[in-house]
Protein backbone atom coordinates (compact mmCIF):
# COMPACT_ATOMS: atom_id res chain seq x y z
CA UNK A 1 0.00 0.00 0.00
CA UNK A 2 1.42 3.39 -0.99
CA UNK A 3 1.72 6.09 1.67
CA UNK A 4 -0.93 8.10 -0.15
CA UNK A 5 -3.34 5.21 -0.12
CA UNK A 6 -2.66 4.76 3.58
CA UNK A 7 -4.12 8.21 4.14
CA UNK A 8 -7.82 8.04 4.79
CA UNK A 9 -9.88 11.10 3.98
CA UNK A 10 -12.58 9.58 6.09
CA UNK A 11 -10.37 9.46 9.18
CA UNK A 12 -9.00 12.94 8.58
CA UNK A 13 -12.55 14.21 8.23
CA UNK A 14 -13.50 12.38 11.42
CA UNK A 15 -10.80 14.23 13.34
CA UNK A 16 -11.73 17.58 11.78
CA UNK A 17 -15.30 16.86 12.75
CA UNK A 18 -14.23 16.07 16.32
CA UNK A 19 -12.81 19.58 16.68
CA UNK A 20 -15.64 21.27 14.79
CA UNK A 21 -18.12 19.67 17.16
CA UNK A 22 -16.17 21.21 20.01
CA UNK A 23 -16.07 24.64 18.38
CA UNK A 24 -19.77 24.60 17.53
CA UNK A 25 -20.63 24.11 21.18
CA UNK A 26 -18.19 26.65 22.55
CA UNK A 27 -18.76 30.36 22.03
CA UNK A 28 -15.69 30.96 24.18
CA UNK A 29 -13.41 29.24 21.67
CA UNK A 30 -15.03 31.08 18.74
CA UNK A 31 -14.59 34.46 20.42
CA UNK A 32 -10.98 33.65 21.26
CA UNK A 33 -10.14 33.12 17.56
CA UNK A 34 -11.07 36.68 16.69
CA UNK A 35 -9.88 38.13 19.96
CA UNK A 36 -6.09 38.12 19.59
CA UNK A 37 -5.82 39.57 16.09
CA UNK A 38 -8.32 42.28 17.07
CA UNK A 39 -6.51 43.19 20.28
CA UNK A 40 -3.10 43.30 18.60
CA UNK A 41 -4.43 45.41 15.77
CA UNK A 42 -6.10 47.92 18.11
CA UNK A 43 -3.13 48.17 20.49
CA UNK A 44 -0.45 48.60 17.83
CA UNK A 45 -2.70 50.93 15.84
CA UNK A 46 -2.79 53.35 18.77
CA UNK A 47 0.94 52.94 19.43
CA UNK A 48 1.74 53.70 15.79
CA UNK A 49 -0.61 56.69 15.82
CA UNK A 50 1.07 58.07 18.95
CA UNK A 51 4.65 57.50 17.78
CA UNK A 52 3.95 59.13 14.42
CA UNK A 53 3.62 62.48 16.18
CA UNK A 54 5.52 61.93 19.43
CA UNK A 55 8.59 59.83 18.62
CA UNK A 56 10.90 62.47 20.09
CA UNK A 57 8.97 62.27 23.40
CA UNK A 58 9.76 58.59 23.73
CA UNK A 59 13.39 59.21 22.78
CA UNK A 60 13.72 61.91 25.45
CA UNK A 61 12.57 59.64 28.26
CA UNK A 62 14.77 56.58 28.09
CA UNK A 63 13.27 53.47 29.55
CA UNK A 64 9.66 54.65 29.53
CA UNK A 65 8.58 51.88 27.16
CA UNK A 66 10.54 49.19 29.04
CA UNK A 67 9.14 50.38 32.39
CA UNK A 68 5.64 50.38 30.92
CA UNK A 69 6.15 46.85 29.63
CA UNK A 70 7.40 45.63 33.02
CA UNK A 71 4.43 47.19 34.82
CA UNK A 72 2.11 45.59 32.29
CA UNK A 73 3.77 42.25 33.01
CA UNK A 74 2.98 42.69 36.73
CA UNK A 75 -0.69 42.94 35.82
CA UNK A 76 -0.56 40.09 33.31
CA UNK A 77 1.47 37.72 35.48
CA UNK A 78 -0.60 38.56 38.55
CA UNK A 79 -3.79 37.64 36.73
CA UNK A 80 -2.28 34.63 35.01
CA UNK A 81 -0.74 33.33 38.25
CA UNK A 82 -4.15 33.42 39.89
CA UNK A 83 -6.13 31.91 37.01
CA UNK A 84 -3.62 29.17 36.16
CA UNK A 85 -3.43 28.02 39.78
CA UNK A 86 -7.18 27.45 39.61
CA UNK A 87 -7.05 25.83 36.16
CA UNK A 88 -4.32 23.44 37.32
CA UNK A 89 -6.78 22.07 39.89
CA UNK A 90 -9.22 21.40 37.05
CA UNK A 91 -6.60 19.63 34.96
CA UNK A 92 -5.72 17.52 38.01
CA UNK A 93 -9.46 16.76 38.58
CA UNK A 94 -8.75 17.80 42.13
CA UNK A 95 -11.53 20.33 42.77
CA UNK A 96 -13.86 17.66 44.13
CA UNK A 97 -11.24 16.59 46.65
CA UNK A 98 -10.57 20.18 47.66
CA UNK A 99 -14.17 21.25 48.10
CA UNK A 100 -15.13 18.06 49.93
CA UNK A 101 -12.46 18.96 52.47
CA UNK A 102 -12.89 21.70 55.08
CA UNK A 103 -11.28 24.18 52.62
CA UNK A 104 -13.49 27.26 52.22
CA UNK A 105 -13.69 28.92 48.77
CA UNK A 106 -12.23 32.16 50.15
CA UNK A 107 -9.33 30.18 51.62
CA UNK A 108 -8.64 28.82 48.14
CA UNK A 109 -8.80 32.40 46.82
CA UNK A 110 -6.33 33.59 49.48
CA UNK A 111 -3.96 30.76 48.56
CA UNK A 112 -4.19 31.57 44.86
CA UNK A 113 -3.45 35.24 45.62
CA UNK A 114 -0.27 34.24 47.45
CA UNK A 115 0.77 31.85 44.68
CA UNK A 116 0.12 34.58 42.14
CA UNK A 117 2.34 36.98 44.10
CA UNK A 118 5.18 34.44 44.11
CA UNK A 119 4.76 33.71 40.38
CA UNK A 120 4.71 37.43 39.58
CA UNK A 121 7.83 38.16 41.61
CA UNK A 122 9.69 35.33 39.87
CA UNK A 123 8.49 36.26 36.36
CA UNK A 124 8.75 40.03 36.54
CA UNK A 125 11.87 39.92 38.73
CA UNK A 126 13.69 37.94 36.03
CA UNK A 127 12.50 40.31 33.29
CA UNK A 128 13.45 43.39 35.38
CA UNK A 129 16.96 42.02 35.92
CA UNK A 130 17.34 41.40 32.18
CA UNK A 131 16.08 44.91 31.39
CA UNK A 132 18.75 46.33 33.67
CA UNK A 133 21.47 44.17 32.07
CA UNK A 134 20.43 44.71 28.45
CA UNK A 135 19.04 48.24 28.38
CA UNK A 136 20.43 49.79 31.58
CA UNK A 137 16.81 50.46 32.51
CA UNK A 138 15.84 49.76 36.11
CA UNK A 139 12.19 49.68 37.04
CA UNK A 140 13.35 50.62 40.54
CA UNK A 141 14.12 54.09 39.15
CA UNK A 142 10.41 54.67 39.73
CA UNK A 143 11.27 54.79 43.42
CA UNK A 144 8.71 54.43 46.19
CA UNK A 145 5.74 54.95 43.81
CA UNK A 146 6.67 51.59 42.27
CA UNK A 147 5.21 49.94 45.39
CA UNK A 148 1.87 51.68 44.81
CA UNK A 149 1.87 50.78 41.10
CA UNK A 150 2.86 47.17 41.87
CA UNK A 151 0.14 46.73 44.49
CA UNK A 152 -2.58 48.27 42.33
CA UNK A 153 -1.70 46.26 39.24
CA UNK A 154 -1.60 43.05 41.24
CA UNK A 155 -5.02 43.73 42.75
CA UNK A 156 -6.45 44.43 39.28
CA UNK A 157 -4.89 41.15 38.13
CA UNK A 158 -6.52 39.28 41.00
CA UNK A 159 -9.90 40.86 40.28
CA UNK A 160 -9.69 39.70 36.65
CA UNK A 161 -8.34 36.32 37.82
CA UNK A 162 -11.38 35.87 40.05
CA UNK A 163 -13.72 36.57 37.15
CA UNK A 164 -11.81 34.29 34.76
CA UNK A 165 -11.80 31.47 37.34
CA UNK A 166 -15.54 31.98 37.78
CA UNK A 167 -16.05 31.62 34.02
CA UNK A 168 -13.86 28.51 33.94
CA UNK A 169 -15.97 27.05 36.75
CA UNK A 170 -19.09 27.88 34.73
CA UNK A 171 -17.97 26.90 31.22
CA UNK A 172 -15.20 24.38 31.96
CA UNK A 173 -11.82 24.26 30.28
CA UNK A 174 -13.34 25.75 27.10
CA UNK A 175 -12.92 29.06 28.91
CA UNK A 176 -9.25 28.39 29.67
CA UNK A 177 -8.06 30.70 26.90
CA UNK A 178 -9.65 33.59 28.77
CA UNK A 179 -6.92 33.13 31.36
CA UNK A 180 -4.34 34.02 28.72
CA UNK A 181 -6.30 36.70 26.95
CA UNK A 182 -8.84 38.37 29.23
CA UNK A 183 -6.48 41.01 30.55
CA UNK A 184 -5.56 42.13 27.02
CA UNK A 185 -8.97 43.67 26.57
CA UNK A 186 -7.63 46.37 28.92
CA UNK A 187 -4.34 46.81 27.03
CA UNK A 188 -5.40 49.31 24.35
CA UNK A 189 -7.48 51.30 26.85
CA UNK A 190 -4.96 51.43 29.70
CA UNK A 191 -2.51 53.76 27.98
CA UNK A 192 0.43 51.50 28.63
CA UNK A 193 2.69 52.88 25.90
CA UNK A 194 0.86 56.15 25.16
CA UNK A 195 -1.22 58.63 27.18
CA UNK A 196 -4.95 57.99 27.44
CA UNK A 197 -5.54 61.30 25.60
CA UNK A 198 -4.40 59.54 22.39
CA UNK A 199 -7.63 57.53 22.43
CA UNK A 200 -10.82 58.82 20.81
CA UNK A 201 -12.92 60.75 23.38
CA UNK A 202 -15.54 58.02 23.72
CA UNK A 203 -12.82 55.43 24.47
CA UNK A 204 -11.17 57.79 26.96
CA UNK A 205 -14.44 57.83 28.87
CA UNK A 206 -14.27 54.04 29.07
CA UNK A 207 -10.52 54.02 29.85
CA UNK A 208 -10.89 56.15 32.98
CA UNK A 209 -13.06 53.40 34.48
CA UNK A 210 -10.03 51.10 34.47
CA UNK A 211 -7.61 51.23 37.45
CA UNK A 212 -4.79 50.41 35.03
CA UNK A 213 -5.26 53.69 33.10
CA UNK A 214 -4.63 55.62 36.32
CA UNK A 215 -1.57 53.52 37.17
CA UNK A 216 0.06 54.10 33.78
CA UNK A 217 -0.74 57.82 33.89
CA UNK A 218 0.90 57.81 37.33
CA UNK A 219 3.94 56.06 35.89
CA UNK A 220 4.31 58.71 33.19
CA UNK A 221 3.91 61.40 35.86
CA UNK A 222 6.88 59.98 37.76
CA UNK A 223 9.10 59.26 34.75
CA UNK A 224 8.38 62.34 32.65
CA UNK A 225 7.21 65.09 34.99
CA UNK A 226 8.98 63.80 38.11
CA UNK A 227 5.70 64.17 40.00
CA UNK A 228 3.68 61.64 41.97
CA UNK A 229 0.06 62.07 40.96
CA UNK A 230 -1.85 61.29 44.15
CA UNK A 231 -5.26 61.63 42.53
CA UNK A 232 -4.34 58.92 40.00
CA UNK A 233 -3.32 56.62 42.86
CA UNK A 234 -6.59 57.15 44.77
CA UNK A 235 -8.64 56.67 41.60
CA UNK A 236 -6.85 53.37 40.98
CA UNK A 237 -7.35 52.25 44.59
CA UNK A 238 -11.06 53.12 44.55
CA UNK A 239 -11.67 51.37 41.24
CA UNK A 240 -9.70 48.33 42.39
CA UNK A 241 -11.86 48.11 45.50
CA UNK A 242 -14.93 47.93 43.27
CA UNK A 243 -13.40 45.47 40.79
CA UNK A 244 -12.07 43.07 43.40
CA UNK A 245 -15.41 43.11 45.26
CA UNK A 246 -17.26 42.35 42.02
CA UNK A 247 -14.68 39.65 41.18
CA UNK A 248 -15.09 37.99 44.58
CA UNK A 249 -18.88 38.14 44.26
CA UNK A 250 -18.82 36.60 40.77
CA UNK A 251 -16.42 33.87 41.94
CA UNK A 252 -18.56 32.92 44.93
CA UNK A 253 -21.75 33.01 42.82
CA UNK A 254 -20.07 30.75 40.27
CA UNK A 255 -18.94 28.40 43.05
CA UNK A 256 -22.50 28.13 44.35
CA UNK A 257 -23.73 27.63 40.77
CA UNK A 258 -21.21 24.83 40.29
CA UNK A 259 -22.41 23.21 43.52
CA UNK A 260 -25.98 23.43 42.26
CA UNK A 261 -25.16 21.96 38.84
CA UNK A 262 -22.79 19.29 40.17
CA UNK A 263 -19.84 20.78 38.31
CA UNK A 264 -17.36 20.73 41.17
CA UNK A 265 -16.55 17.10 40.51
CA UNK A 266 -17.10 17.11 36.75
CA UNK A 267 -15.58 20.07 34.97
CA UNK A 268 -14.00 19.28 31.63
CA UNK A 269 -13.93 20.62 28.10
Amino acid at each position, binding site marked *: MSPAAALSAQRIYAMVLRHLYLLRKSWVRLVEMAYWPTMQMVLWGFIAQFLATNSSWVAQVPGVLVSALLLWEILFRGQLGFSLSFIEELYARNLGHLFASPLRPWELVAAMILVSLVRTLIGVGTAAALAWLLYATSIFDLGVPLVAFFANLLVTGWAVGLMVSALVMRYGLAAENLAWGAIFVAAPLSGIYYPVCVLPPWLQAVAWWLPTSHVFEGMRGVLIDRAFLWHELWNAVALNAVYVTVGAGVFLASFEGARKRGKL*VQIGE
Partner: protein
Amino acid sequence: MSGEAATLPAIEVEGLVKRFGRVEAVRGISFAVARGSTTALLGGNGAGKTSTLSMLLGVLRPSAGTVRILGEDVGRHRYRVLARMNFTSPYVDLPKSLTVEENLKVFARLYGVPRLRARIAELAAELEIGDFLKRSYGTLSAGQRTRVSIAKALLNAPDVLLLDEPTASLDPDVGDRVRAQLSGYQRASGATLLIASHNMPEVERMCSAVLMMRAGRIVDRGSPAELIARYGRRTMEEVFLDVARRAEPAEAAA
Protein backbone atom coordinates in the same frame (compact mmCIF):
# COMPACT_ATOMS: atom_id res chain seq x y z
CA MET B 1 -20.21 13.83 72.32
CA SER B 2 -23.30 13.46 74.49
CA GLY B 3 -24.84 10.04 75.07
CA GLU B 4 -27.89 11.03 73.05
CA ALA B 5 -25.75 12.20 70.13
CA ALA B 6 -23.79 8.94 70.22
CA THR B 7 -26.97 6.94 69.68
CA LEU B 8 -28.15 9.03 66.72
CA PRO B 9 -27.56 7.60 63.24
CA ALA B 10 -24.30 8.72 61.65
CA ILE B 11 -26.16 9.73 58.49
CA GLU B 12 -29.79 10.84 58.33
CA VAL B 13 -31.31 11.75 54.97
CA GLU B 14 -34.85 13.08 54.73
CA GLY B 15 -36.76 13.76 51.50
CA LEU B 16 -33.59 14.34 49.45
CA VAL B 17 -34.24 15.53 45.89
CA LYS B 18 -31.85 16.55 43.12
CA ARG B 19 -33.07 17.97 39.84
CA PHE B 20 -30.83 18.86 36.90
CA GLY B 21 -33.22 20.91 34.78
CA ARG B 22 -36.08 18.57 33.94
CA VAL B 23 -34.19 15.47 34.98
CA GLU B 24 -34.84 14.30 38.53
CA ALA B 25 -31.71 12.35 39.45
CA VAL B 26 -32.70 11.76 43.09
CA ARG B 27 -36.40 11.60 43.92
CA GLY B 28 -37.14 12.25 47.52
CA ILE B 29 -35.12 9.56 49.25
CA SER B 30 -34.96 9.07 53.02
CA PHE B 31 -32.66 6.76 54.92
CA ALA B 32 -30.51 6.48 58.01
CA VAL B 33 -27.14 4.81 58.43
CA ALA B 34 -26.33 3.48 61.89
CA ARG B 35 -23.12 4.57 63.59
CA GLY B 36 -20.31 2.09 63.19
CA SER B 37 -22.04 0.21 60.38
CA THR B 38 -20.90 -0.49 56.84
CA THR B 39 -23.77 0.17 54.46
CA ALA B 40 -23.92 -0.33 50.72
CA LEU B 41 -25.67 2.03 48.33
CA LEU B 42 -26.47 -0.10 45.29
CA GLY B 43 -28.00 0.59 41.93
CA GLY B 44 -27.30 0.53 38.23
CA ASN B 45 -25.61 3.31 36.33
CA GLY B 46 -27.66 6.49 36.62
CA ALA B 47 -29.57 5.24 39.66
CA GLY B 48 -28.53 8.32 41.63
CA LYS B 49 -25.79 6.89 43.87
CA THR B 50 -23.05 9.36 42.99
CA SER B 51 -25.47 12.30 43.18
CA THR B 52 -26.53 11.10 46.62
CA LEU B 53 -22.94 10.77 47.84
CA SER B 54 -22.10 14.20 46.39
CA MET B 55 -25.00 15.72 48.33
CA LEU B 56 -23.82 14.04 51.52
CA LEU B 57 -20.43 15.69 50.98
CA GLY B 58 -22.01 19.02 50.18
CA VAL B 59 -20.31 19.36 46.77
CA LEU B 60 -23.75 19.08 45.19
CA ARG B 61 -26.55 21.27 46.51
CA PRO B 62 -29.85 19.38 47.00
CA SER B 63 -32.99 20.72 45.31
CA ALA B 64 -34.93 19.72 48.43
CA GLY B 65 -34.53 17.71 51.60
CA THR B 66 -32.07 17.59 54.44
CA VAL B 67 -28.87 15.72 55.24
CA ARG B 68 -27.61 15.34 58.79
CA ILE B 69 -24.23 13.77 59.42
CA LEU B 70 -23.01 13.07 62.96
CA GLY B 71 -25.95 15.13 64.17
CA GLU B 72 -24.95 18.21 62.09
CA ASP B 73 -27.10 19.70 59.33
CA VAL B 74 -24.80 19.57 56.29
CA GLY B 75 -26.65 22.49 54.68
CA ARG B 76 -25.86 24.74 57.65
CA HIS B 77 -22.67 23.38 59.18
CA ARG B 78 -20.99 21.80 56.18
CA TYR B 79 -17.42 22.74 57.09
CA ARG B 80 -17.78 21.55 60.66
CA VAL B 81 -18.85 18.10 59.57
CA LEU B 82 -16.46 17.84 56.59
CA ALA B 83 -13.52 17.83 58.98
CA ARG B 84 -14.88 14.54 60.40
CA MET B 85 -15.62 12.93 57.02
CA ASN B 86 -13.66 11.84 54.00
CA PHE B 87 -14.25 10.07 50.72
CA THR B 88 -12.84 8.39 47.63
CA SER B 89 -14.33 8.58 44.18
CA PRO B 90 -13.28 7.58 40.68
CA TYR B 91 -14.61 10.94 39.46
CA VAL B 92 -11.84 12.93 41.14
CA ASP B 93 -8.09 12.55 41.17
CA LEU B 94 -4.98 13.89 42.86
CA PRO B 95 -2.40 16.16 41.21
CA LYS B 96 -0.20 13.85 39.13
CA SER B 97 2.93 15.97 39.20
CA LEU B 98 3.11 15.94 42.99
CA THR B 99 4.67 12.99 44.78
CA VAL B 100 2.46 10.75 46.88
CA GLU B 101 3.96 12.23 50.04
CA GLU B 102 3.40 15.82 48.85
CA ASN B 103 -0.22 15.05 48.04
CA LEU B 104 -0.78 13.49 51.44
CA LYS B 105 0.90 16.42 53.21
CA VAL B 106 -1.36 18.91 51.40
CA PHE B 107 -4.52 17.05 52.37
CA ALA B 108 -3.30 16.40 55.91
CA ARG B 109 -3.02 20.18 56.33
CA LEU B 110 -6.41 20.78 54.72
CA TYR B 111 -7.97 18.40 57.26
CA GLY B 112 -5.93 19.78 60.15
CA VAL B 113 -4.30 16.44 60.91
CA PRO B 114 -2.04 16.70 63.98
CA ARG B 115 1.44 15.15 63.76
CA LEU B 116 0.98 14.74 60.04
CA ARG B 117 4.36 13.12 59.32
CA ALA B 118 3.65 10.37 61.86
CA ARG B 119 0.14 9.90 60.47
CA ILE B 120 1.43 9.59 56.89
CA ALA B 121 4.08 7.10 58.01
CA GLU B 122 1.42 5.10 59.85
CA LEU B 123 -0.87 4.98 56.80
CA ALA B 124 2.06 4.24 54.49
CA ALA B 125 2.81 1.14 56.57
CA GLU B 126 -0.83 0.04 56.83
CA LEU B 127 -1.62 0.53 53.15
CA GLU B 128 1.79 -0.59 51.87
CA ILE B 129 2.50 2.63 50.00
CA GLY B 130 5.82 3.40 51.71
CA ASP B 131 7.86 2.28 48.69
CA PHE B 132 6.38 4.92 46.43
CA LEU B 133 5.85 7.87 48.78
CA LYS B 134 8.58 9.79 46.92
CA ARG B 135 7.25 8.94 43.46
CA SER B 136 5.00 11.20 41.39
CA TYR B 137 1.38 10.20 41.77
CA GLY B 138 1.03 10.24 37.96
CA THR B 139 3.58 7.42 37.55
CA LEU B 140 1.64 4.95 39.74
CA SER B 141 -0.45 2.00 38.56
CA ALA B 142 -4.23 2.01 39.03
CA GLY B 143 -3.92 -0.23 42.10
CA GLN B 144 -1.27 1.97 43.67
CA ARG B 145 -3.33 5.09 43.00
CA THR B 146 -6.34 3.51 44.67
CA ARG B 147 -4.32 2.78 47.78
CA VAL B 148 -3.02 6.36 47.83
CA SER B 149 -6.55 7.62 47.40
CA ILE B 150 -7.63 5.52 50.38
CA ALA B 151 -4.68 6.81 52.39
CA LYS B 152 -5.88 10.34 51.61
CA ALA B 153 -9.38 9.32 52.72
CA LEU B 154 -8.09 7.93 56.03
CA LEU B 155 -5.71 10.83 56.82
CA ASN B 156 -8.08 12.54 59.24
CA ALA B 157 -9.27 9.23 60.78
CA PRO B 158 -12.80 10.07 59.61
CA ASP B 159 -15.88 9.13 61.61
CA VAL B 160 -17.82 8.87 58.34
CA LEU B 161 -16.20 7.52 55.19
CA LEU B 162 -17.97 7.67 51.82
CA LEU B 163 -16.56 5.33 49.19
CA ASP B 164 -17.72 5.55 45.59
CA GLU B 165 -16.70 2.32 43.83
CA PRO B 166 -13.54 1.92 45.90
CA THR B 167 -12.34 -1.23 44.13
CA ALA B 168 -13.42 -0.44 40.56
CA SER B 169 -10.64 -1.20 38.06
CA LEU B 170 -8.60 -3.17 40.58
CA ASP B 171 -7.44 -6.73 40.01
CA PRO B 172 -8.86 -9.32 42.45
CA ASP B 173 -5.69 -9.39 44.54
CA VAL B 174 -5.46 -5.64 45.05
CA GLY B 175 -9.25 -5.38 45.42
CA ASP B 176 -9.14 -7.98 48.18
CA ARG B 177 -6.39 -6.13 50.03
CA VAL B 178 -8.24 -2.82 49.78
CA ARG B 179 -11.40 -4.40 51.20
CA ALA B 180 -9.40 -5.91 54.06
CA GLN B 181 -7.80 -2.54 54.81
CA LEU B 182 -11.14 -0.73 54.80
CA SER B 183 -12.78 -3.36 57.00
CA GLY B 184 -9.77 -3.23 59.33
CA TYR B 185 -10.08 0.53 59.63
CA GLN B 186 -13.81 0.27 60.30
CA ARG B 187 -13.32 -2.31 63.07
CA ALA B 188 -10.45 -0.43 64.70
CA SER B 189 -12.05 3.02 64.61
CA GLY B 190 -15.76 2.28 64.82
CA ALA B 191 -16.25 4.57 61.83
CA THR B 192 -19.33 4.53 59.62
CA LEU B 193 -18.79 3.47 56.01
CA LEU B 194 -21.20 4.12 53.15
CA ILE B 195 -20.10 2.35 49.98
CA ALA B 196 -21.48 2.77 46.45
CA SER B 197 -20.43 -0.34 44.59
CA HIS B 198 -21.18 -2.58 41.64
CA ASN B 199 -19.21 -5.41 43.20
CA MET B 200 -21.77 -7.67 44.87
CA PRO B 201 -19.34 -10.11 46.54
CA GLU B 202 -17.73 -7.03 48.09
CA VAL B 203 -21.11 -5.95 49.45
CA GLU B 204 -21.86 -9.38 50.89
CA ARG B 205 -18.45 -9.48 52.54
CA MET B 206 -18.27 -5.96 53.95
CA CYS B 207 -21.77 -4.61 54.49
CA SER B 208 -24.33 -5.17 57.21
CA ALA B 209 -27.00 -3.10 55.47
CA VAL B 210 -27.94 -2.38 51.87
CA LEU B 211 -29.91 0.44 50.24
CA MET B 212 -31.08 -0.45 46.73
CA MET B 213 -31.56 2.51 44.37
CA ARG B 214 -33.21 2.66 40.99
CA ALA B 215 -34.14 5.72 38.93
CA GLY B 216 -33.43 8.08 41.82
CA ARG B 217 -35.47 6.17 44.41
CA ILE B 218 -34.65 3.73 47.16
CA VAL B 219 -36.62 0.70 46.10
CA ASP B 220 -35.55 -1.75 48.78
CA ARG B 221 -33.38 -2.06 51.86
CA GLY B 222 -32.20 -4.60 54.40
CA SER B 223 -29.19 -6.72 55.25
CA PRO B 224 -27.65 -8.78 52.42
CA ALA B 225 -29.06 -11.96 53.99
CA GLU B 226 -32.56 -10.44 54.30
CA LEU B 227 -32.56 -9.25 50.70
CA ILE B 228 -31.32 -12.60 49.39
CA ALA B 229 -34.08 -14.35 51.34
CA ARG B 230 -36.77 -11.82 50.31
CA TYR B 231 -36.01 -12.25 46.61
CA GLY B 232 -35.53 -16.02 46.90
CA ARG B 233 -32.04 -15.80 45.40
CA ARG B 234 -28.64 -17.19 46.28
CA THR B 235 -26.45 -14.11 45.93
CA MET B 236 -26.63 -10.32 46.01
CA GLU B 237 -25.65 -10.38 42.33
CA GLU B 238 -28.97 -12.08 41.54
CA VAL B 239 -30.86 -9.70 43.82
CA PHE B 240 -29.23 -6.76 42.07
CA LEU B 241 -30.31 -8.06 38.66
CA ASP B 242 -33.87 -8.61 39.91
CA VAL B 243 -34.11 -5.07 41.21
CA ALA B 244 -32.38 -3.46 38.23
CA ARG B 245 -34.59 -5.24 35.69
CA ARG B 246 -37.92 -4.93 37.48
CA ALA B 247 -40.50 -3.07 35.36
CA GLU B 248 -41.94 -0.92 38.11
CA PRO B 249 -40.14 0.29 41.19
CA ALA B 250 -41.29 -1.47 44.31
CA GLU B 251 -42.27 0.46 47.35
CA ALA B 252 -39.35 1.02 49.60
CA ALA B 253 -39.41 -1.20 52.62
CA ALA B 254 -40.51 0.54 55.71
